[in-house]
């Protein structure tokens, strides 16, 4: 799209079908396939620590893409994404524990349940914009948090809910190695859907609503319908991400899904790039790895100074929190278009090297 000027020369599209492919060139598609194949091979090489990081990036990334559809594509702000993420986690555990629905089915079903919840909470969004919508979704965050704490039948209340491991055709996929493939499957599916959306009718309608809602309406787009639909779709992603999270940890507790997590999701898409599918994945990777890098940094400091970094080690939790905030602020100031924009600049730099134009 915007990067069309970076397509290598000699690329002539001879049909409209070839002009609307997801990847601009066959080389780019080949790289994406290689990337997925490398990930399939990853559990054989990486240890469980790195796999758990990748799994985290996976389920957080799915939820973050949902938020990007809402905030980045449709231009509707939401401060309640963690609530929907949590609802998906509880719903999946609930479906499995109370009705014996197999976990593989319970996860997408939980996502569908979350979709309906999102449509419900999205109704005010049909009429509200900007700050007012932020406050309305803020309220949904607290309503859901309160619901998790009180609804014993659904979430187990304050004691939380156990979430069974994934089991497919008798294979136990509970370990990091097994679960990695479950997450990878859903990441590929959900990101493909997110990309396809952008080249079809409803995705264009979302962006039209964001860019100029008055003329979108004159083009025959029902604003209320699309604003609410965007909430539903974003909740589907959040619910699926949450369900994966729940079954990965094996236990869902109401305390995890706070406003802080909602803001973290917002941070991911701001850092990655609003309205960009690839950026979502970059931003999520950044946000998941940032605390780990901080921890590593403190570890290095420890060895350098010789163990005498008590305040640093004690303050590690605060440092992690502060670094997230700092990262968001720095990105807003220096790279509001996110990592994906930075990536494009780097790519064009190499393409044109040594000439800068």
């Amino acid at each position: 799209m915007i990067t069309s000027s970076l397509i290598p020369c000699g690329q002539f599209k001879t049909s409209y079908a070839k002009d609307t492919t997801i990847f601009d060139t066959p080389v780019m598609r080949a790289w994406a396939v290689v990337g997925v194949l490398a990930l399939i091979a990853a559990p054989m090489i990486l240890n469980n620590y790195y796999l758990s990081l990748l799994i985290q990036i996976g389920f957080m990334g799915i939820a973050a893409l949902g938020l990007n559809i809402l905030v980045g594509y449709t231009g509707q702000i939401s401060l309640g994404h963690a609530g929907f993420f949590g609802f998906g986690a509880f719903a999946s555990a609930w479906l499995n524990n109370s009705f014996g629905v197999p976990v593989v089915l319970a996860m997408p079903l939980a996502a569908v349940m979350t979709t309906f919840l999102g449509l419900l909470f999205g109704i005010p969004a049909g009429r509200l914009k900007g700050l007012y919508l932020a406050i309305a979704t803020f309220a949904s965050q607290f309503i859901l948090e309160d619901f998790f704490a009180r609804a014993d039948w659904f979430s187990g209340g304050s004691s939380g809910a156990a979430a069974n491991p994934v089991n497919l055709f008798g294979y136990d996929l509970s370990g990091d190695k097994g679960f990695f493939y479950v997450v990878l499957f859903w990441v590929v599916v959900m990101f493909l859907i997110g990309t396809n959306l952008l080249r079809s009718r409803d995705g264009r309608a979302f962006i039209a609503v964001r860019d100029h809602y008055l003329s979108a309406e004159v083009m025959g787009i029902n604003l209320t319908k699309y604003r609410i639909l965007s909430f539903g779709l974003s909740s589907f992603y959040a619910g699926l991400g949450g369900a994966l999270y729940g079954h990965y940890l094996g236990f869902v507790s109401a305390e995890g899904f706070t406003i802080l997590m909602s803001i973290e999701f917002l941070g991911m898409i701001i850092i990655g790039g609003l309205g960009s599918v690839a950026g979502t994945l970059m931003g999520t990777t950044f946000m998941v790895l940032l605390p780990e890098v901080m921890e590593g940094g403190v570890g290095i400091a420890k060895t350098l100074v010789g163990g005498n970094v008590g305040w640093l080690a004690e303050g590690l939790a605060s440092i992690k929190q502060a670094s997230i905030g700092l990262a968001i602020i720095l990105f807003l100031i220096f790279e509001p278009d996110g990592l994906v924009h930075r990536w494009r600049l780097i790519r064009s730099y190499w393409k044109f090297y040594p000439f800068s134009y």
Partner: protein
Amino acid sequence: MTSTASPLLEVRDVSLGFGGVRALTEVNFHVNKGELFSIIGPNGAGKTSMLNCVSGRYKPTAGRVFFEGRDVTGMTPNQRATIGIGRTFQNLALFGHMSVLDNIMVGRHHLLKNNFATGGLYWAGAQKEELAHRRKVEDIIDFLEIAHIRKSTAGTLSYGLRKRVELARAMAVEPKIILLDEPMAGMNLEEKEDMARYIVDLNEEWGMTVVMIEHDMGVVMDISHRVIVLEFGRKIADGLPDEIMSNERVKVAYLGVEDDEEPAAGAVA
């Protein structure tokens, strides 16, 4: 220009008020199928308000709007787009971050059937449908000679080109009537000539009925079939371009001729 039994668009006694301000007072007019119809008047006369009443942006405080004999006064703008009313805006209203192609494809919205599920999977005929409509969009792109910018981001284009893309987007809706709000504002002579040619072709070759608001009298009088004049929200004249040009009241209100002055010669371009 055969006037059929019922006109394509009929505006009956439309009044519009914002609090104490009366933007329109009992305006009546009709547009026949196949006409190129212009609305002129001084700034603040209520021309754009009139267009907004037709496209559904404003609800008239009194009066009715009929389209193809059907009362559309209560319909929302998006419903009106689906029954065949398309429009452009006076101030640029493109989707700034989308490519020109996507902007025009948005115009096909009500003609496309794929939804978030089929579109998300890009399956079950969604791709085939998208490509079929792409073909239609390319026809419009060819007609308006914007093929070279079809992949550009709309927000980066020059003013004249943006106006043209906006026209393309309105055409993509495949409206029966197209409302153009100052299609030539802020253009240089060459761009104006191009735009005038597009509008005439739109009317004659594509068979669209056109309602146009324009300040350039030369263009209006040259290409319009019929003209109405608004002043302070009231219709003061209605007729063929020549009749309007020789109407004393129009001259006083709009063309700025003093009562005691001899009308300037050669006002018709």
